[in-house]
């Protein structure tokens, strides 16, 4: 059974990553944000599948940094 817990600090586990996903998808781009959330979750989960979950997070953050360098306006941004 799938269970989640709630506690006063539960927001902290979402906040920063949500911000990262927003910018990864492009600020204001709804579909891009959805796609970025999918990509982020897949990277974290696959990292956790093949190694520890923490290495999945490391991969996802590194992916984010690299994407900021090569596509700062978001994954779906048109090339200018």
């Amino acid at each position: 059974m799938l269970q989640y817990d709630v506690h006063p600090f539960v927001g902290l586990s979402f906040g920063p990553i949500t911000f990262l996903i927003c910018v990864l998808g492009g600020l204001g781009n709804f579909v891009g944000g959805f796609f970025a959330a999918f990509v982020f979750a897949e990277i974290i989960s696959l990292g956790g599948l093949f190694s520890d979950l923490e290495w999945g997070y490391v991969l996802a953050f590194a992916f984010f940094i690299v994407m900021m360098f090569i596509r700062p306006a978001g994954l779906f941004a048109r090339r200018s």
Partner: protein
Amino acid sequence: MNLRYAAWATGLVALIALPFVYRDSYHLHILVLILIWSFAYTSWSIMGRFGLVSLGHGGFMGVGAYVTALLWNHLGVSPWIGIPISMVAAGVLALVVAYPCFRFRITGHYFVLVTLALSGIVLQVITATRDHTAARSATRRTAPRAASCWRCSSTTRSPGT
């Protein structure tokens, strides 16, 4: 002007001499915390002066603290050598991320998020390698009991005793 320098010098000498003559650990702990927050704040204010907001300072502080502590724990390197090494390590990490940032002109929100992701990477790497980095692991080297404050080490009890 001379009076002001004399006042600064007196305060500095008093601060350096304090741990030798005053041994109350709680009050020294408060002073250590004051100094730690002070240098964290100083580095942040320097960034603000350049117009960049960074959320990665925690990551760099973590690298500095962990490199020093791990060199002491695993290799027995004195923190007097470990602190410069950890400064170089944090600087190298900063250079690896900052050079592309300047190259691709990452500023504003994007710079904030790059540094946030970097501190997240540091946090997760330390957590993932907890077998080697865990402070409470049984492999912790016991510091000498009669450590002087200049030896930069604390008198920690080994977990086994």
